[in-house]
Protein backbone atom coordinates (compact mmCIF):
# COMPACT_ATOMS: atom_id res chain seq x y z
CA UNK A 1 0.00 0.00 0.00
CA UNK A 2 2.82 2.35 0.91
CA UNK A 3 4.37 1.70 -2.42
CA UNK A 4 1.14 2.62 -4.20
CA UNK A 5 0.84 5.88 -2.27
CA UNK A 6 4.43 6.81 -3.06
CA UNK A 7 3.95 5.97 -6.71
CA UNK A 8 0.77 8.02 -6.90
CA UNK A 9 2.30 11.06 -5.25
CA UNK A 10 5.37 10.86 -7.47
CA UNK A 11 3.03 10.62 -10.45
CA UNK A 12 1.12 13.72 -9.40
CA UNK A 13 4.40 15.47 -8.59
CA UNK A 14 5.48 15.27 -12.20
CA UNK A 15 2.42 17.21 -13.33
CA UNK A 16 2.66 19.67 -10.47
CA UNK A 17 6.22 20.47 -11.49
CA UNK A 18 5.09 20.86 -15.09
CA UNK A 19 2.25 23.09 -13.94
CA UNK A 20 4.62 25.30 -11.97
CA UNK A 21 6.83 25.67 -15.01
CA UNK A 22 3.77 26.55 -17.09
CA UNK A 23 2.55 29.13 -14.57
CA UNK A 24 6.01 30.64 -14.46
CA UNK A 25 5.94 31.13 -18.20
CA UNK A 26 2.36 32.31 -18.35
CA UNK A 27 2.69 34.95 -15.63
CA UNK A 28 6.28 35.87 -16.45
CA UNK A 29 6.18 35.95 -20.21
CA UNK A 30 2.66 36.23 -21.61
CA UNK A 31 1.64 39.67 -20.24
CA UNK A 32 4.67 41.50 -21.63
CA UNK A 33 4.62 39.63 -24.90
CA UNK A 34 0.93 40.36 -25.30
CA UNK A 35 1.42 44.11 -24.83
CA UNK A 36 4.34 44.10 -27.26
CA UNK A 37 2.34 42.14 -29.81
CA UNK A 38 -0.55 44.60 -29.61
CA UNK A 39 1.75 47.58 -30.12
CA UNK A 40 3.72 46.01 -32.95
CA UNK A 41 0.64 44.74 -34.75
CA UNK A 42 -0.83 48.23 -34.58
CA UNK A 43 2.34 49.97 -35.80
CA UNK A 44 2.62 47.58 -38.71
CA UNK A 45 -1.03 48.03 -39.63
CA UNK A 46 -0.64 51.81 -39.55
CA UNK A 47 2.53 51.87 -41.67
CA UNK A 48 1.24 49.34 -44.16
CA UNK A 49 2.90 46.59 -46.21
CA UNK A 50 3.13 48.63 -49.39
CA UNK A 51 5.88 50.91 -48.14
CA UNK A 52 8.21 48.06 -47.36
CA UNK A 53 7.85 46.89 -50.96
CA UNK A 54 9.13 50.21 -52.21
CA UNK A 55 12.19 49.85 -50.00
CA UNK A 56 12.66 46.24 -51.08
CA UNK A 57 13.10 47.23 -54.71
CA UNK A 58 15.88 49.66 -53.79
CA UNK A 59 17.67 47.11 -51.63
CA UNK A 60 18.53 44.53 -54.30
CA UNK A 61 21.64 46.33 -55.51
CA UNK A 62 24.36 45.53 -52.95
CA UNK A 63 25.09 42.77 -50.43
CA UNK A 64 24.79 44.86 -47.27
CA UNK A 65 21.37 46.19 -48.20
CA UNK A 66 20.35 42.76 -49.46
CA UNK A 67 21.42 40.55 -46.56
CA UNK A 68 21.40 42.92 -43.60
CA UNK A 69 19.09 45.91 -44.04
CA UNK A 70 16.23 44.47 -46.07
CA UNK A 71 15.87 41.17 -44.17
CA UNK A 72 15.89 43.06 -40.88
CA UNK A 73 13.23 45.48 -42.07
CA UNK A 74 11.13 42.73 -43.61
CA UNK A 75 11.31 40.62 -40.49
CA UNK A 76 10.27 43.58 -38.38
CA UNK A 77 7.45 44.67 -40.67
CA UNK A 78 6.12 41.38 -42.01
CA UNK A 79 7.26 38.74 -39.52
CA UNK A 80 7.72 35.06 -40.20
CA UNK A 81 6.95 33.76 -42.85
CA UNK A 82 5.90 36.73 -44.97
CA UNK A 83 9.33 38.39 -44.55
CA UNK A 84 10.61 35.68 -46.87
CA UNK A 85 8.32 36.87 -49.66
CA UNK A 86 10.37 40.04 -50.09
CA UNK A 87 12.88 37.84 -51.90
CA UNK A 88 10.61 38.17 -54.92
CA UNK A 89 12.30 41.46 -55.80
CA UNK A 90 15.70 39.76 -56.06
CA UNK A 91 17.26 38.30 -59.20
CA UNK A 92 16.89 34.49 -59.16
CA UNK A 93 20.53 33.94 -58.21
CA UNK A 94 20.22 35.88 -54.96
CA UNK A 95 16.93 34.42 -53.76
CA UNK A 96 18.46 31.52 -51.80
CA UNK A 97 20.88 33.95 -50.13
CA UNK A 98 18.10 36.31 -49.20
CA UNK A 99 16.18 33.36 -47.79
CA UNK A 100 19.20 32.25 -45.76
CA UNK A 101 19.53 35.67 -44.19
CA UNK A 102 15.86 36.57 -43.76
CA UNK A 103 14.92 33.28 -42.13
CA UNK A 104 17.66 33.79 -39.54
CA UNK A 105 16.46 37.34 -39.02
CA UNK A 106 13.08 35.89 -38.05
CA UNK A 107 14.86 34.37 -35.06
CA UNK A 108 17.66 36.64 -33.91
CA UNK A 109 15.44 39.72 -33.65
CA UNK A 110 12.72 37.95 -31.74
CA UNK A 111 14.28 38.66 -28.34
CA UNK A 112 13.42 42.33 -28.61
CA UNK A 113 10.58 42.08 -31.12
CA UNK A 114 8.59 38.96 -30.23
CA UNK A 115 5.92 39.74 -32.80
CA UNK A 116 8.30 38.60 -35.55
CA UNK A 117 8.01 34.91 -34.76
CA UNK A 118 5.70 34.22 -31.83
CA UNK A 119 5.24 30.54 -32.62
CA UNK A 120 8.94 29.78 -32.32
CA UNK A 121 9.75 32.24 -29.55
CA UNK A 122 10.36 29.63 -26.89
CA UNK A 123 13.95 29.11 -28.03
CA UNK A 124 14.72 32.62 -26.83
CA UNK A 125 12.18 32.77 -24.02
CA UNK A 126 13.18 29.44 -22.54
CA UNK A 127 16.75 30.60 -22.13
CA UNK A 128 15.82 34.16 -21.16
CA UNK A 129 13.48 32.89 -18.46
CA UNK A 130 16.35 30.91 -16.97
CA UNK A 131 18.44 34.06 -16.86
CA UNK A 132 15.64 36.12 -15.32
CA UNK A 133 14.95 33.56 -12.63
CA UNK A 134 18.52 34.07 -11.42
CA UNK A 135 17.58 37.70 -10.81
CA UNK A 136 19.43 38.97 -13.88
CA UNK A 137 18.04 41.33 -16.51
CA UNK A 138 17.40 39.62 -19.85
CA UNK A 139 17.59 42.85 -21.90
CA UNK A 140 21.35 42.65 -22.60
CA UNK A 141 20.80 39.13 -23.87
CA UNK A 142 18.00 40.21 -26.22
CA UNK A 143 20.03 43.16 -27.47
CA UNK A 144 23.17 41.12 -28.08
CA UNK A 145 21.09 38.42 -29.77
CA UNK A 146 19.87 41.01 -32.27
CA UNK A 147 23.20 42.76 -32.81
CA UNK A 148 25.26 39.60 -33.19
CA UNK A 149 22.47 38.30 -35.39
CA UNK A 150 22.81 41.35 -37.60
CA UNK A 151 26.44 40.48 -38.32
CA UNK A 152 26.03 36.70 -38.36
CA UNK A 153 22.96 36.74 -40.61
CA UNK A 154 24.75 38.96 -43.08
CA UNK A 155 27.64 36.50 -43.19
CA UNK A 156 25.23 33.57 -43.59
CA UNK A 157 23.40 35.34 -46.42
CA UNK A 158 26.54 36.35 -48.21
CA UNK A 159 28.12 32.91 -47.84
CA UNK A 160 25.10 31.50 -49.64
CA UNK A 161 26.11 33.45 -52.76
CA UNK A 162 29.18 31.23 -52.88
CA UNK A 163 27.40 27.96 -52.13
CA UNK A 164 24.80 28.83 -54.76
CA UNK A 165 27.58 29.31 -57.31
CA UNK A 166 29.00 25.95 -56.25
CA UNK A 167 25.70 24.08 -56.48
CA UNK A 168 24.99 25.73 -59.83
CA UNK A 169 28.19 24.19 -61.16
CA UNK A 170 27.34 20.79 -59.66
CA UNK A 171 23.90 20.71 -61.19
CA UNK A 172 24.84 22.41 -64.45
CA UNK A 173 22.23 25.13 -64.01
CA UNK A 174 22.86 28.82 -64.26
CA UNK A 175 20.57 31.30 -62.57
CA UNK A 176 20.10 34.86 -63.72
CA UNK A 177 21.67 37.71 -61.79
CA UNK A 178 19.52 40.27 -63.58
CA UNK A 179 16.24 41.51 -62.21
CA UNK A 180 13.38 40.36 -64.36
CA UNK A 181 10.94 43.04 -65.34
CA UNK A 182 7.66 41.89 -63.94
CA UNK A 183 4.16 42.79 -64.77
Amino acid at each position, binding site marked *: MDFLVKFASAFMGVFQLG*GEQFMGWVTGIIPTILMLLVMMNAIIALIGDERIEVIAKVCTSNPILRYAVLPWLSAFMLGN*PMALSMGKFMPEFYK*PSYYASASYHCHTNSGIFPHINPSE*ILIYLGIAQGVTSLGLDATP*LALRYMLVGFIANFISGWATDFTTALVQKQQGISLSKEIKSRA
Partner: protein
Amino acid sequence: MAEYKAIRVEKGSGGFGGPLTIQGTEKRNKVMYITGGGVAPDILPKIVELTGLEPVNGFKTSAPEDELALVIIDCGGTLRCGLYPKKRIPTININPVGKSGPLAQFITEDIYVSGVTNAQISPADGSVVPTEEAAPAAEEKKGGIDTTKKLSEQMAESGGKGNVLAKIGLGAGKVVATFNQAARDAVQTCITTLLPFMAFVSMLIGIINGTGFGTFFSGILQPLLGSIPGLLVLGIICSIPGLSAILGPGAVISQILGGIMGAEIAAGRISPHLALVGLFALNCHAACDFIPVGLGLAEAETETVEVGVVSVMYSRFATSWIRVLLAVVFSIGLYTV
Protein backbone atom coordinates in the same frame (compact mmCIF):
# COMPACT_ATOMS: atom_id res chain seq x y z
CA MET B 1 -10.54 14.31 -67.66
CA ALA B 2 -11.13 10.59 -67.73
CA GLU B 3 -7.71 9.66 -66.41
CA TYR B 4 -8.05 11.74 -63.26
CA LYS B 5 -10.31 10.15 -60.68
CA ALA B 6 -11.71 11.86 -57.65
CA ILE B 7 -10.89 10.74 -54.14
CA ARG B 8 -12.46 11.48 -50.84
CA VAL B 9 -10.19 12.27 -47.90
CA GLU B 10 -11.50 12.32 -44.35
CA LYS B 11 -9.80 13.48 -41.19
CA GLY B 12 -7.87 10.91 -39.19
CA SER B 13 -7.89 10.38 -35.46
CA GLY B 14 -7.35 13.67 -33.68
CA GLY B 15 -7.42 15.39 -37.03
CA PHE B 16 -9.28 18.42 -38.24
CA GLY B 17 -11.20 19.51 -41.31
CA GLY B 18 -12.45 17.71 -44.37
CA PRO B 19 -13.82 15.65 -45.83
CA LEU B 20 -12.17 16.91 -48.99
CA THR B 21 -12.86 15.74 -52.48
CA ILE B 22 -9.77 15.89 -54.63
CA GLN B 23 -10.17 15.84 -58.39
CA GLY B 24 -7.35 16.50 -60.81
CA THR B 25 -7.97 18.30 -64.10
CA GLU B 26 -5.96 18.73 -67.28
CA LYS B 27 -4.30 21.75 -65.75
CA ARG B 28 -4.25 20.87 -62.09
CA ASN B 29 -2.59 17.51 -62.37
CA LYS B 30 0.12 17.44 -59.71
CA VAL B 31 0.34 16.47 -56.08
CA MET B 32 3.24 18.08 -54.22
CA TYR B 33 4.57 16.64 -50.98
CA ILE B 34 6.76 18.62 -48.58
CA THR B 35 7.33 16.09 -45.84
CA GLY B 36 10.12 14.69 -43.69
CA GLY B 37 12.92 16.47 -45.50
CA GLY B 38 11.92 15.01 -48.85
CA VAL B 39 10.84 11.50 -47.86
CA ALA B 40 7.62 10.45 -49.54
CA PRO B 41 4.74 10.04 -47.08
CA ASP B 42 3.02 6.66 -46.66
CA ILE B 43 -0.19 7.93 -48.17
CA LEU B 44 1.41 9.12 -51.40
CA PRO B 45 1.35 5.85 -53.40
CA LYS B 46 -2.34 5.33 -52.68
CA ILE B 47 -3.22 8.88 -53.64
CA VAL B 48 -1.20 8.68 -56.85
CA GLU B 49 -2.76 5.35 -57.76
CA LEU B 50 -6.33 6.45 -57.10
CA THR B 51 -6.19 9.92 -58.61
CA GLY B 52 -3.70 9.60 -61.44
CA LEU B 53 -2.01 12.78 -60.27
CA GLU B 54 1.70 13.27 -60.87
CA PRO B 55 3.75 13.31 -57.62
CA VAL B 56 6.20 16.18 -57.10
CA ASN B 57 8.77 16.31 -54.30
CA GLY B 58 8.65 19.85 -52.92
CA PHE B 59 12.13 19.46 -51.48
CA LYS B 60 13.69 18.68 -54.83
CA THR B 61 11.79 20.92 -57.13
CA SER B 62 8.59 22.87 -57.30
CA ALA B 63 5.56 23.20 -59.48
CA PRO B 64 3.56 26.25 -60.48
CA GLU B 65 0.80 26.77 -57.96
CA ASP B 66 -1.93 26.70 -60.56
CA GLU B 67 -0.94 23.14 -61.49
CA LEU B 68 -1.31 21.76 -57.99
CA ALA B 69 -4.40 19.74 -57.25
CA LEU B 70 -3.19 18.82 -53.77
CA VAL B 71 -0.38 19.47 -51.32
CA ILE B 72 0.72 16.97 -48.65
CA ILE B 73 2.59 18.34 -45.64
CA ASP B 74 3.71 17.16 -42.20
CA CYS B 75 3.59 20.46 -40.39
CA GLY B 76 3.63 20.44 -36.59
CA GLY B 77 1.36 23.43 -36.40
CA THR B 78 3.42 26.54 -37.06
CA LEU B 79 3.56 27.65 -40.65
CA ARG B 80 3.12 25.30 -43.52
CA CYS B 81 -0.26 24.11 -42.37
CA GLY B 82 -1.68 27.54 -43.19
CA LEU B 83 0.28 28.53 -46.27
CA TYR B 84 -1.42 26.42 -48.88
CA PRO B 85 -4.91 26.78 -47.45
CA LYS B 86 -4.26 30.53 -47.70
CA LYS B 87 -3.62 30.04 -51.40
CA ARG B 88 -6.77 27.89 -51.58
CA ILE B 89 -4.87 24.77 -52.59
CA PRO B 90 -6.36 21.64 -50.98
CA THR B 91 -3.99 20.51 -48.25
CA ILE B 92 -3.50 17.21 -46.44
CA ASN B 93 -1.51 17.33 -43.21
CA ILE B 94 -0.40 13.87 -42.09
CA ASN B 95 0.00 15.26 -38.57
CA PRO B 96 -3.20 15.75 -36.58
CA VAL B 97 -3.00 19.53 -36.43
CA GLY B 98 -6.00 21.83 -36.38
CA LYS B 99 -6.33 25.59 -36.73
CA SER B 100 -2.91 26.65 -35.55
CA GLY B 101 -0.01 28.94 -36.27
CA PRO B 102 0.10 32.49 -37.62
CA LEU B 103 -2.05 31.56 -40.60
CA ALA B 104 -4.69 29.72 -38.56
CA GLN B 105 -7.48 31.87 -39.94
CA PHE B 106 -7.05 30.33 -43.39
CA ILE B 107 -7.26 26.76 -42.16
CA THR B 108 -10.85 25.81 -42.80
CA GLU B 109 -12.71 22.55 -43.21
CA ASP B 110 -13.30 23.04 -46.91
CA ILE B 111 -9.65 23.22 -47.90
CA TYR B 112 -7.68 21.43 -45.20
CA VAL B 113 -7.73 18.00 -43.61
CA SER B 114 -5.28 16.57 -41.08
CA GLY B 115 -4.24 13.36 -39.32
CA VAL B 116 -4.71 11.51 -42.58
CA THR B 117 -3.54 7.91 -43.08
CA ASN B 118 -4.30 5.45 -45.87
CA ALA B 119 -7.49 4.43 -44.10
CA GLN B 120 -9.07 7.84 -44.64
CA ILE B 121 -8.57 7.88 -48.38
CA SER B 122 -11.19 6.37 -50.62
CA PRO B 123 -12.37 6.79 -54.19
CA ALA B 124 -15.21 9.24 -54.48
CA ASP B 125 -18.15 8.64 -56.73
CA GLY B 126 -20.94 10.94 -57.71
CA SER B 127 -20.84 14.55 -56.64
CA VAL B 128 -17.38 15.85 -57.37
CA VAL B 129 -16.11 19.35 -56.91
CA PRO B 130 -13.14 20.13 -59.19
CA THR B 131 -10.51 22.06 -57.29
CA GLU B 132 -10.65 25.05 -59.59
CA GLU B 133 -14.15 25.85 -58.53
CA ALA B 134 -12.99 26.23 -54.97
CA ALA B 135 -10.77 29.17 -55.86
CA PRO B 136 -13.15 32.17 -55.94
CA ALA B 137 -13.93 31.87 -52.25
CA ALA B 138 -10.48 33.28 -51.45
CA GLU B 139 -11.51 36.88 -51.96
CA GLU B 140 -13.76 37.28 -48.95
CA LYS B 141 -11.24 38.90 -46.56
CA LYS B 142 -10.61 42.09 -48.52
CA GLY B 143 -14.26 42.98 -48.51
CA GLY B 144 -14.31 44.21 -44.94
CA ILE B 145 -11.49 46.66 -45.45
CA ASP B 146 -12.89 48.11 -48.64
CA THR B 147 -16.25 48.67 -47.08
CA THR B 148 -14.84 50.58 -44.13
CA LYS B 149 -12.77 52.68 -46.49
CA LYS B 150 -15.78 53.58 -48.54
CA LEU B 151 -17.74 54.31 -45.43
CA SER B 152 -15.07 56.65 -44.09
CA GLU B 153 -14.74 58.31 -47.46
CA GLN B 154 -18.45 58.84 -47.60
CA MET B 155 -18.45 60.29 -44.14
CA ALA B 156 -15.53 62.56 -44.95
CA GLU B 157 -17.37 63.81 -48.04
CA SER B 158 -20.61 64.47 -46.30
CA GLY B 159 -18.75 66.18 -43.46
CA GLY B 160 -17.10 68.51 -45.96
CA LYS B 161 -13.59 69.83 -45.89
CA GLY B 162 -14.28 72.46 -43.29
CA ASN B 163 -15.50 70.01 -40.69
CA VAL B 164 -12.37 69.49 -38.64
CA LEU B 165 -14.20 67.73 -35.86
CA ALA B 166 -15.50 65.04 -38.16
CA LYS B 167 -12.00 64.48 -39.49
CA ILE B 168 -10.51 64.14 -36.03
CA GLY B 169 -13.30 61.80 -35.08
CA LEU B 170 -12.68 59.66 -38.12
CA GLY B 171 -8.94 59.60 -37.54
CA ALA B 172 -9.29 58.67 -33.90
CA GLY B 173 -11.83 56.04 -34.80
CA LYS B 174 -9.43 54.49 -37.27
CA VAL B 175 -6.57 54.41 -34.78
CA VAL B 176 -8.75 52.88 -32.09
CA ALA B 177 -10.05 50.27 -34.51
CA THR B 178 -6.51 49.46 -35.61
CA PHE B 179 -5.34 48.96 -32.05
CA ASN B 180 -8.39 46.92 -31.22
CA GLN B 181 -7.77 44.63 -34.17
CA ALA B 182 -4.09 44.44 -33.19
CA ALA B 183 -5.09 43.35 -29.71
CA ARG B 184 -7.48 40.76 -31.10
CA ASP B 185 -4.73 39.34 -33.31
CA ALA B 186 -2.26 39.37 -30.43
CA VAL B 187 -4.57 37.47 -28.10
CA GLN B 188 -5.32 35.02 -30.89
CA THR B 189 -1.59 34.44 -31.39
CA CYS B 190 -1.16 33.74 -27.69
CA ILE B 191 -4.01 31.27 -27.65
CA THR B 192 -3.32 29.45 -30.89
CA THR B 193 0.45 29.24 -30.79
CA LEU B 194 2.10 30.40 -27.56
CA LEU B 195 0.04 28.75 -24.83
CA PRO B 196 -0.20 25.28 -26.39
CA PHE B 197 3.51 25.14 -26.92
CA MET B 198 4.25 26.35 -23.42
CA ALA B 199 1.96 23.68 -22.01
CA PHE B 200 3.62 20.98 -24.07
CA VAL B 201 7.18 21.94 -23.13
CA SER B 202 6.19 22.51 -19.49
CA MET B 203 4.90 18.99 -19.26
CA LEU B 204 8.12 17.66 -20.75
CA ILE B 205 10.14 19.65 -18.24
CA GLY B 206 7.89 18.35 -15.47
CA ILE B 207 8.57 14.79 -16.51
CA ILE B 208 12.27 15.43 -16.88
CA ASN B 209 12.59 17.07 -13.47
CA GLY B 210 10.02 15.02 -11.59
CA THR B 211 11.03 11.49 -12.46
CA GLY B 212 14.67 11.63 -11.57
CA PHE B 213 15.21 11.33 -15.26
CA GLY B 214 16.44 14.92 -15.03
CA THR B 215 19.74 14.13 -13.36
CA PHE B 216 20.36 11.40 -15.87
CA PHE B 217 19.28 13.61 -18.74
CA SER B 218 21.34 16.62 -17.77
CA GLY B 219 24.27 14.25 -17.39
CA ILE B 220 23.99 13.69 -21.13
CA LEU B 221 23.13 17.25 -22.08
CA GLN B 222 25.49 18.98 -19.66
CA PRO B 223 28.59 18.46 -21.80
CA LEU B 224 26.70 19.69 -24.88
CA LEU B 225 24.68 22.59 -23.45
CA GLY B 226 26.98 23.49 -20.60
CA SER B 227 30.24 24.36 -22.32
CA ILE B 228 31.39 26.40 -25.31
CA PRO B 229 32.98 23.48 -27.21
CA GLY B 230 29.84 21.42 -26.53
CA LEU B 231 27.57 24.13 -27.93
CA LEU B 232 29.84 24.53 -30.93
CA VAL B 233 29.63 20.81 -31.64
CA LEU B 234 25.85 20.89 -31.15
CA GLY B 235 25.55 23.77 -33.63
CA ILE B 236 27.64 22.01 -36.24
CA ILE B 237 25.84 18.69 -35.83
CA CYS B 238 22.40 20.31 -36.09
CA SER B 239 23.36 22.02 -39.33
CA ILE B 240 24.63 18.95 -41.17
CA PRO B 241 22.85 19.09 -44.56
CA GLY B 242 19.89 16.71 -44.54
CA LEU B 243 19.83 16.35 -40.76
CA SER B 244 19.11 20.07 -40.58
CA ALA B 245 15.92 19.61 -42.60
CA ILE B 246 14.68 16.84 -40.31
CA LEU B 247 15.36 18.81 -37.12
CA GLY B 248 13.65 21.89 -38.46
CA PRO B 249 9.84 21.54 -38.42
CA GLY B 250 8.21 24.02 -36.08
CA ALA B 251 11.58 24.57 -34.42
CA VAL B 252 10.21 22.03 -31.96
CA ILE B 253 13.56 20.51 -31.05
CA SER B 254 15.22 23.90 -30.70
CA GLN B 255 12.39 25.13 -28.51
CA ILE B 256 12.55 22.07 -26.27
CA LEU B 257 16.31 22.43 -25.92
CA GLY B 258 15.85 26.16 -25.24
CA GLY B 259 13.35 25.39 -22.50
CA ILE B 260 15.61 22.76 -21.00
CA MET B 261 18.67 24.99 -21.19
CA GLY B 262 16.73 27.79 -19.46
CA ALA B 263 15.61 25.41 -16.72
CA GLU B 264 19.21 24.27 -16.27
CA ILE B 265 20.38 27.89 -16.07
CA ALA B 266 17.72 28.62 -13.47
CA ALA B 267 18.81 25.56 -11.50
CA GLY B 268 22.38 26.82 -11.54
CA ARG B 269 23.72 23.86 -13.47
CA ILE B 270 24.60 25.93 -16.54
CA SER B 271 26.19 29.38 -16.35
CA PRO B 272 24.03 32.27 -17.65
CA HIS B 273 27.19 33.44 -19.40
CA LEU B 274 26.46 30.77 -22.01
CA ALA B 275 22.94 32.05 -22.75
CA LEU B 276 23.89 33.96 -25.90
CA VAL B 277 26.08 31.18 -27.26
CA GLY B 278 23.22 28.77 -26.58
CA LEU B 279 20.78 30.90 -28.57
CA PHE B 280 22.99 30.70 -31.64
CA ALA B 281 24.00 27.08 -31.24
CA LEU B 282 20.42 25.81 -30.85
CA ASN B 283 19.31 27.56 -33.98
CA CYS B 284 22.01 26.90 -36.57
CA HIS B 285 19.63 24.79 -38.62
CA ALA B 286 16.84 27.39 -38.56
CA ALA B 287 14.35 27.07 -41.40
CA CYS B 288 16.22 24.33 -43.29
CA ASP B 289 12.95 22.42 -43.48
CA PHE B 290 11.21 25.42 -44.94
CA ILE B 291 13.46 26.26 -47.90
CA PRO B 292 11.15 25.18 -50.76
CA VAL B 293 8.18 26.93 -49.23
CA GLY B 294 10.17 30.04 -48.38
CA LEU B 295 11.57 30.27 -51.88
CA GLY B 296 8.06 29.74 -53.16
CA LEU B 297 6.99 32.78 -51.19
CA ALA B 298 9.76 34.68 -52.97
CA GLU B 299 8.26 33.53 -56.29
CA ALA B 300 11.42 31.65 -57.18
CA GLU B 301 11.56 29.59 -60.35
CA THR B 302 11.82 25.81 -60.32
CA GLU B 303 15.56 25.78 -61.01
CA THR B 304 16.14 28.30 -58.24
CA VAL B 305 14.37 26.02 -55.78
CA GLU B 306 16.42 23.04 -56.94
CA VAL B 307 19.67 24.93 -56.46
CA GLY B 308 18.50 26.88 -53.42
CA VAL B 309 17.53 23.92 -51.22
CA VAL B 310 21.00 22.43 -51.50
CA SER B 311 22.75 25.78 -51.42
CA VAL B 312 21.10 27.04 -48.24
CA MET B 313 21.75 23.74 -46.45
CA TYR B 314 25.43 23.96 -47.45
CA SER B 315 25.73 27.55 -46.31
CA ARG B 316 24.01 26.79 -43.01
CA PHE B 317 26.58 24.07 -42.44
CA ALA B 318 29.45 26.26 -43.57
CA THR B 319 28.55 29.22 -41.37
CA SER B 320 27.22 27.49 -38.24
CA TRP B 321 30.59 27.50 -36.48
CA ILE B 322 31.16 31.16 -37.42
CA ARG B 323 27.83 32.08 -35.83
CA VAL B 324 28.56 30.24 -32.61
CA LEU B 325 32.07 31.69 -32.35
CA LEU B 326 30.77 35.21 -33.04
CA ALA B 327 28.37 34.69 -30.16
CA VAL B 328 31.26 33.52 -27.99
CA VAL B 329 33.22 36.70 -28.78
CA PHE B 330 30.24 38.95 -28.15
CA SER B 331 29.43 37.17 -24.88
CA ILE B 332 32.40 38.91 -23.26
CA GLY B 333 31.07 40.75 -20.24
CA LEU B 334 27.64 39.13 -20.40
CA TYR B 335 26.44 37.93 -16.98
CA THR B 336 29.95 37.32 -15.75
CA VAL B 337 30.15 37.03 -12.01
